[in-house]
């Protein structure tokens, strides 16, 4: 398997209504790692994620997914890149009018020629993989927040992408459910070799699952640190990084 970077970001700049959110952001994500984008509220973590999955167009810079330029790609070429990645949104974003099985089957229905029986089997497998066997016919509104997130991961894996993006997977979950979700992510990364890119500010999750991370900062409008979570915590001399890992309030 190619060991080159799955994602390469160079000089990325994001702006909203003329206001710069971050600029000069460059990093690489390697195959098979659990890469965490961390930082405080409002530093642009989710904005960065939305750039990486092609929802926002950058003000400047390049994003390469498996060697292909996402920013420059259009039409079928862009769709081809997007189908190689799966996304779990903060809210789960499951389709409320469909049950869990139909939610997971939908990407296969639209993007493959698989017969219905095969789609059903694969969808049931994916739901079992995330521990939702027996809940296939439940609507998203009938299950808990943690289950919704697991179902969203199952849907994101429907087309067997090599790359999964997770936006704040722990948000709104109790510590036990959050830890279970962390274990699921680790299990999927190890057993299926999926590369994960997570956006979070949950320290417990970061230390539990991250292979490597970058930290964004609102005032710096960019990346202030890169490395393993332990390196960032123990070796960084940047006061913003130290404050984040020591959970120190920044109130004068």
């Amino acid at each position, binding site marked *: 398997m190619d060991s080159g970077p799955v994602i390469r970001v160079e000089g990325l700049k994001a702006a909203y209504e003329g206001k710069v959110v971050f600029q000069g952001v460059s990093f690489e994500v390697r195959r098979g790692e659990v890469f965490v984008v961390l930082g405080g509220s409002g530093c642009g973590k989710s904005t960065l994620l939305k750039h990486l999955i092609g929802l926002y167009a950058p003000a400047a810079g390049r994003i390469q997914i498996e060697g292909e330029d996402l920013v420059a790609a259009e039409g079928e070429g862009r769709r*081809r890149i*997007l189908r190689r*990645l799966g996304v779990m949104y903060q*809210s789960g974003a499951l389709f409320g009018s469909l049950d869990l099985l139909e939610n997971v089957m939908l990407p296969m229905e639209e*993007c493959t020629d698989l017969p219905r029986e095969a789609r059903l089997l694969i969808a049931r497998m994916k739901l079992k993989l995330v521990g939702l066997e027996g809940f296939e016919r439940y609507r998203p509104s009938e299950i808990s927040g943690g289950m919704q997130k697991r179902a969203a991961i199952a849907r994101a894996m429907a087309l067997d992408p090599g790359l999964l993006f997770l936006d704040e997977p722990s948000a709104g979950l109790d510590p036990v459910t959050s830890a279970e979700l962390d274990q699921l992510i680790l299990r999927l990364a190890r057993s299926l070799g999926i590369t994960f890119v997570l956006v979070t500010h949950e320290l417990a999750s970061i230390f539990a699952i991250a292979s490597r991370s970058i930290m964004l900062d609102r005032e710096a409008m960019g990346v202030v640190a890169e490395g393993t979570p332990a390196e960032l915590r123990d070796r960084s001399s940047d006061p913003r990084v130290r404050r984040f890992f020591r959970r120190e309030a920044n109130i004068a």
Partner: protein
Amino acid sequence: MTVDASGLSYCDGSGLGLLLEIRRRQEARGAAFELRGLAEQFRALLDLFGPAGVGAMPGPRRRGGLVEGAGRAAAGLLADVREMVGFVGTLTFELCRLALRPMSLRWKDAFWAAERAGVNALPIVALIGFLIGLIMAFQAAMPMRKFGAEIYAADLVAISTLRELGPLMTAIVLAGRSGSAFAAEIGTMKVNEEVNALTTMGLSPFRFLVLPRVVATVAMTPLLTVFTNLCGLIGGAVVLVIMGFPLVTYANQVSGAVGMADLLGGLAKAVVFGVLVAGAGCLKGLQTKTGASAVGESTTRAVVAGIVLILVSDGVFSVVYYALGI
């Protein structure tokens, strides 16, 4: 002034405010102020405002002047028009593509939307049609009676219902009922990031969400218009039968007053109205921003935009029909 606070065991925000205000007034007069024995937890709160007391109140945030406001509004309007033109272009393209590949439509979703926009709207559309026919016939027949011409109320009901009011009222009901529902559904999906989820799955939200609703509404509006027309004519019949005219006389009068051109002209309008209502609903849904009030705003805008577009296009139809002699 010296305040002895050594006996203070509890102090809320009002108490701290009082101490601060006393200090401020004393300092403003150049007089001394000493606070003794204040417990450490209260001292920390008091010190938040510094030794000079509460800082100056910040001025109101600059919101921009009239010119800036007008400029922003104009830019917003232009962006809205640009988005609408883009939407119309995409819709036209997708409808043409659909005509070439009908199986590419999500027919299950389209039937579901048709049931809600069409079948479920039937009672209200029928009631409105019936009442309009009834009221129109009654209001026209009363003055006409003075001239012994009350039977011509049937002509008035038939012509105005088939050519104008049938399609117009149906479309307005649909704008309020289905246009708003489309905006709310798609808007909620936008807020819940479901639309983003579709995009990142490489699926077109347009094909997935907009096309089935537009096709369903376009198919249902003429059918509902036929029902509105029929119920309007029944309403007119009720009035004239009560006034003593046999039903067959009314029927003959109606068939003599209107022809197939009137019916088809009205139904052609209904098709266009259907596109406008569904298009406005879906566009406003897709334009939904974030926040709790965004879906409500989109719904209101969808109804207003739908009704305005219906009325404008009805005016255009009147001119075109007049020019064509229909």
